């Protein structure tokens, strides 16, 4: 019965979304924006409530292991721990699309709830016409995705008779990081629907001003923070779960999430120029449309099965075509409106390269190039194949070859942006500081050049560039905190959060690049077949292998190896890598054992047996943790940026 209620709630949500997409639009066209907005707000809140009902009912079916539901049968098992029963809700196509749609409705409802119209200072108020248009666009999106769910991917399909046991969730997905990965990723993807909606509203509203850029920025920032965390979590999961410590594979599905991240980062920076300097508006509008299109393309690539990849776990051409139609509708519609209303917006330009906006424009050119590179590398083999011009592969070596040289100039201009003023392009930092920064970067690069043998030129230059970036970010922070003096530093919680946003995010990028360069260049590796008592040496550390024992988990059996440190500060520490066998799902996973020291990770896995010996593989990944700590710092920078906006919106809510 609950499943039928859930299905019914979905259908009602579609009806509400259709109302949200149509009636407020006619209200706007008939010059009654206040009524249009009021209706849109109610519809948005009703839509999220209905979707929440559907989602809770589906989760309930998973928790109860109600195998009369096709979806629960195919993706769950009674013996699974509760957290993975819940994660199973979005560990499959139908459930994850329901989550996608729920998050979409939640963004719309959050906007409807907090829309700054009434009770605000007139300077902050959003015209009802604009707000109503944002809700109309959200209504269209909701209608499209709810139709997709109901007509091609109904999560509430019944099975009769109900089977006794479910098939279980793919074991490599039974992991805490992967339970949180899809919701974060989707919150990021879908968040860009807000900047899309704002751009459409700005285009259709006779917006000569730039207020829309200011209204748009917190939503871009929120989406960007979620997407950063979602990608980082997925990468960390791949690192410890796939068994050898790779953290990024340039896999099509990873690329699908990287593209909106790159263009979203560009959008974040150019929207700042539009807000502060009233220029680049045409570019910001175009980028808003394209970033959301890339989010949709990400969904399309993963869900349609056009691409073979490690993650394409649910695919179906019919659904692919439906998503392609949605993508075409919104991208095409967005671009058509863009072309139609563009003349209302003044031409971009009117500033010098040597100014903050000039360097932010350069930043956007680099990020746009990076986005296009990922895009072309991902679709080129498909296009070539479709044109019958041969089958080629584009993989990590291609992307590394292009991204290395692309990152370097980007790193060099990046820290200069915050150190220049807007417009006049006056240098904020004393020039001696810049000279010292450059000197330090050059010295370290030269030092590495002479002391390290096996290091590529590009890796060397990147490390120099990263040092320049890191010291630049610290200089930026110090300049921003200087007005508060030592008294301010004594009470850090009273300092303005805006001061930390950009420096922290830029420093995080520096950390991430150091982690990537160091762990790929100085990785240690050893593979050996050993018996109990044998000693393995990895990057100067000695480990004794003590054999393998059987252990029982909640829903798996495992072989657990035992490796003991014989030397170093970790002497006596035990590493216990596992190979797990999941009965219900009839498959196995490798659980790496990882110890962290000051310089990096020691990473060990056990393999199969050869004769009476056991294969043990160990790696030393220097500074690898900086990759995810860097991502965390970037996201935290974004959160500080959001907090900096709070006083205004708090006033609005009052």
């Amino acid at each position, binding site marked *: 019965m609950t499943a039928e209620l859930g299905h019914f709630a979905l259908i009602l949500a579609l009806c509400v979304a259709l109302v949200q997409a149509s009636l407020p639009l006619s209200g706007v066209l008939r010059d009654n924006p206040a009524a249009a907005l009021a209706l849109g707000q109610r519809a948005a809140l009703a839509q999220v409530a209905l979707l929440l009902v559907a989602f809770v009912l589906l989760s309930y079916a998973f928790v109860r292991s109600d195998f009369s539901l096709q979806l629960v049968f195919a993706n769950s098992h009674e013996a699974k721990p509760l957290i993975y029963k819940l994660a199973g809700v979005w560990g499959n196509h139908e459930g994850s699309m329901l989550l996608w749609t729920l998050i979409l409705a939640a963004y719309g409802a959050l906007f409807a709830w907090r829309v700054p119209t009434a009770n605000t200072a007139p300077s902050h108020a959003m015209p009802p016409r604009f707000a109503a248009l944002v809700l109309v666009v959200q209504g269209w999106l909701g209608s499209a995705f709810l139709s997709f769910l109901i007509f091609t991917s109904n999560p509430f399909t019944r099975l009769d008779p109900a089977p006794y046991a479910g098939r279980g969730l793919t074991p490599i997905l039974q992991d805490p990081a992967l339970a949180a990965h899809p919701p974060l990723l989707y919150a990021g993807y879908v968040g860009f629907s807000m900047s899309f909606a704002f751009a459409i509203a700005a285009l259709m509203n006779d917006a000569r001003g730039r207020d829309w850029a200011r209204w748009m920025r917190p939503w871009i920032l929120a989406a960007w923070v979620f997407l950063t965390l979602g990608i980082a979590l997925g990468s960390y999961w791949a690192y410890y779960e796939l068994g050898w410590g790779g953290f990024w594979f340039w896999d099509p599905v990873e690329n699908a999430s990287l593209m909106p991240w790159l263009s979203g980062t560009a959008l974040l920076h150019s929207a700042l120029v539009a807000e502060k300097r009233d220029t680049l508006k045409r570019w910001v509008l175009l980028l808003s449309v394209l970033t959301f299109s890339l989010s949709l393309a990400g969904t399309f690539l993963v869900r349609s099965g056009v691409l073979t990849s490690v993650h394409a776990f649910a695919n179906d051409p019919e659904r692919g075509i439906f998503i392609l139609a949605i993508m075409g509708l919104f991208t095409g519609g967005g671009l058509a409106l863009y072309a139609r209303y563009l003349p209302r917006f003044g031409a971009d330009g009117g500033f010098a390269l040597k100014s903050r906006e000039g360097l932010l424009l350069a930043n956007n050119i680099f990020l746009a*190039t990076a986005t296009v590179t990922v895009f072309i590398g991902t679709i080129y083999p498909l296009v070539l194949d479709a044109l019958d011009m041969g089958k080629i592969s584009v993989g990590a070596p291609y992307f590394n070859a292009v991204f290395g040289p692309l990152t370097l100039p980007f790193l060099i201009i990046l820290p200069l942006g915050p150190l220049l003023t807007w417009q006049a392009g006056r240098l904020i930092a004393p020039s001696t500081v810049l000279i010292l920064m450059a000197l330090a970067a050059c010295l370290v690069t030269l030092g590495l050049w002479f002391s390290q043998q096996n290091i590529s030129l590009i890796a060397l230059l990147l490390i120099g560039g990263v040092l320049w970036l890191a010291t630049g970010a610290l200089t930026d922070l110090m300049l921003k905190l200087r007005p508060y003096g030592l008294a301010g530093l004594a009470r850090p919680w009273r300092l303005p959060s805006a001061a930390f946003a950009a420096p922290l995010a830029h420093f995080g990028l520096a950390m991430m690049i150091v982690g990537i360069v160091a762990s790929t260049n100085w990785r240690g590796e050893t593979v050996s077949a050993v018996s109990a008592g044998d000693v393995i040496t990895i990057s100067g550390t000695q480990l004794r292998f003590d054999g393998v024992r059987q252990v029982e988990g909640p829903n798996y059996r495992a072989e657990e190896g035992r490796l003991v440190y014989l030397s170093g500060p970790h002497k006596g520490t035990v590493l216990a890598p596992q190979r797990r066998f999941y009965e219900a799902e009839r498959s196995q996973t490798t659980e790496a054992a990882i110890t962290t020291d000051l310089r990096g990770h020691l990473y060990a896995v056990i393999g199969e047996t050869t004769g009476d010996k056991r294969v043990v593989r160990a790696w030393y990944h220097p500074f690898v943790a900086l990759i995810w700590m860097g991502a965390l710092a970037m996201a935290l920078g974004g959160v500080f940026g959001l907090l900096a906006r709070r006083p205004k919106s708090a006033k609005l809510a009052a």
Partner: protein
Amino acid sequence: MIILRAFILSIFLLQPALAIDPGEALSDPQLETRARALSLELRCLVCQNQSIDDSDAELARDLRQFVRQRLQAGETDGQIREAVVARYGEFVLFRPQFAPHTFLLWATPLLIMLIGGFWAYRMMRNPSSNRAETRLD
């Protein structure tokens, strides 16, 4: 169909990537470094988007041994790549060769940079309309 798919998945996707086996590595460290670098650029044809260096499939193991034998025979990286392409086709290369049909793949990043640079240059030289608009605000 679903069962078939699950079966294929369980073979290709869920096998953890486990790199090379004991005893495979060459004793000469310089040759072994070259072997690893080459292996990372060759695609395992029965896997999903894995290099032969990352895969523990039978075919990948054979190809790793093939690469190492050729290296010991004194062939250059280019010769070995050609030999592998002659056997399995261009699809095996993760870094496509620069050729007429891959021209756009390699040239696009550069083209975008140039177009972006040109666009920015023109924009900076044309300040007129924007100023007019700023006055209206």
